[in-house]
């Protein structure tokens, strides 16, 4: 039995596979309700299945021990997984949201660095412009994700950043 929590959704859920009926048919249980599930195809990248007579297609994206990003029928979702034991440890460690204490400011888009508005050691407030990127003929600003002091500026003017690249640390 594993406990699941979906980002932006209040409730948490217990879930497990109850029975393998053969011929790719399964019974799974979510909280107290059983559901019929038929797997059409499955790989480590994704799954197609029929749940309660409805077809669904999921892609498995990034995954850490306790968190999984999937796209289900075109809808992106983040799901946290805990065995009941994990959950207690996890709660006690102060975990919950992801990245609130992270220092790295990452670019959400790929692009060419047009200008950098800060220098090493600058104090910034959340929302201050750190740099400006150009992508698809548009200029887009990257803003500080928290208050702090700018360290380790990784982006270089006229350089290229990929999605997820670190622009700078804010400590």
């Amino acid at each position, binding site marked *: 039995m*594993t406990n*699941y929590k*979906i980002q*932006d*959704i209040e409730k948490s*859920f217990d*879930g*497990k*596979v109850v*029975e*393998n009926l*053969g011929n*790719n048919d*399964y019974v*799974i249980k*979510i909280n107290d309700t059983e*559901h019929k*599930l038929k*797997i059409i195809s*499955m790989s480590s990248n994704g*799954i197609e*299945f029929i*749940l*309660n007579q*409805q077809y*669904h297609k*999921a*892609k*498995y994206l990034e995954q850490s021990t306790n968190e*999984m990003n*999937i*796209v*289900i*029928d*075109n*809808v992106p*979702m983040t*799901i946290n*997984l805990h065995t009941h034991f994990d959950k207690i440890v996890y709660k006690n460690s102060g975990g919950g949201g992801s990245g609130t204490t992270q220092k790295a400011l990452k670019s*959400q*888009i*790929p*692009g*060419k660095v047009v200008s950098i508005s800060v220098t090493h050691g600058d104090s910034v407030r959340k929302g201050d412009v750190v740099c400006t990127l150009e*992508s*698809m*003929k*548009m200029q*887009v600003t990257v803003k500080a994700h928290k208050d702090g002091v700018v360290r380790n500026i990784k982006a270089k003017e006229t350089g290229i950043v990929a*999605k997820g690249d670190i622009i700078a640390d804010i400590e």
Partner: protein
Amino acid sequence: MIEKVLIANRGEIALRVIRTCKALGIKTVAVYSDEDINSMHVKQATEAYHIGEASPAKSYLNQEKILDVMLSSGADSVHPGYGFLSENDDFARLCEKNKIIFIGPSADSMNLCGDKMKCKAAMLKAEVPTVPGSPGLVKDADDAEKIANDIGYPVMLKSVFGGGGRGIRIVTNDKELRDGYESVTGESIAAVGKSAILVEKFLEKTRHIEYQFARDTQGNAVHIFERECSIQRRNQKLIEQTPSPIVDEETRARVGESVVNASHAVDYTNLGTAEFLRADNGEFYFIEINARLQVEHPITEFVSGLDLVKLQLDIANGEPIPFKQNDLKMNGYAIECRINAEDTFMDFAPSTGPVPDVTIPAGPSVRCDTYLYPGCTVSPYYDSLMAKLVTWGQTFEESRTRMLSALNDFYIQGVETSIPLYKTILSSDEYKNGDLSTDFLKRYDMIDRLAKDLKIEKENKTEAALAAVIIHSEYFKSRLQNTTSHNSHWKDKLD
């Protein structure tokens, strides 16, 4: 006669042009940058030539390189598509000099259309109404006040050195005008060291309505109905439709006549678009001519039955337009959604990268022009338009519900798209009722509504998401426990 067309463009519009050429037995020459070697237009053209690096300046905007390919490939003509060199009169002139047919207006006419001041003057002469205001720069505050009183408040004071909302002031009376004049002058001098101010009537809740027109080398001209393109973000069109819900037969014919006059006034040849602002009081004001084929041309094709690229080729061949204004009958209703690679919630910031999987919608009266295919890549070097999804219906409601259904069928893995926003817009009562304006998104809080819709969608998908994750985690748990056994045994090992 055109026999071999070089298409100086990429993406879906290059494919669009290739399709008509293929059907007509005309050869096509594609050009591509390093970034585009794997693109559909390279695969579908008769020939394909590499023209340089990914950056547009080094490839699709490189006039000399493109000219080289025209000459070495033996192309007799060039189709510029939209964007890139399509409205560059130097390029049109370069083609003219080299005896290559430029499929579009003459360089001179294009130059005139591109110069807003000169074009406005030509329109005034042709009695095509433009937004009321100063004919050029105002001399001083007195001059501005005089004009404001002539055209009536509210008016807009605009510094020609402004842009992006800076150096603009909306004023509603003489007092505000004098204050505004000073502060706009101040801002402008502070920013760029000089000031130059225009006065223009301020229009609220405007609609963007444009007319497709065609004019041949003999001077015959027709309009091919209007398109309403009011739904925009950052002045970029998102959704277009024809007919406009507020244009009736009489208006269509009346404004259409002024469009024909406008085309004569700039001695236009080939297909063009005359853009208007339509004020809330019903007046139409000419803004500019787009001297090229528009992104949104398919909705006009649906209601007119015409192949507009074919019509471009015919006119470029020097043939007369093969029909008269009265032969054109508007048939049904069409809508286009521009499927962009962008993140609505990040202020429409671009989203790029590999697209491992795509499902393209299809079905009766659905058309999708796209460069996407499973395994393609959305490049950060070019614009964000991945696909144009177009539907037609006998009624507006039929085209709207078909569009909603097609949007639901459209699956693009790997990048953020504008599809969810369009579903919210097309489901809204305001859209259904035709209550459109260029500030539609802000006026009706569409981004907030989208967020709510997505929350509901997430809730609806909860069980399916959990099922996918439960199966996944049990599968991998079992694989870890049985690393030596065959994967498919997994099914039998679940507890």
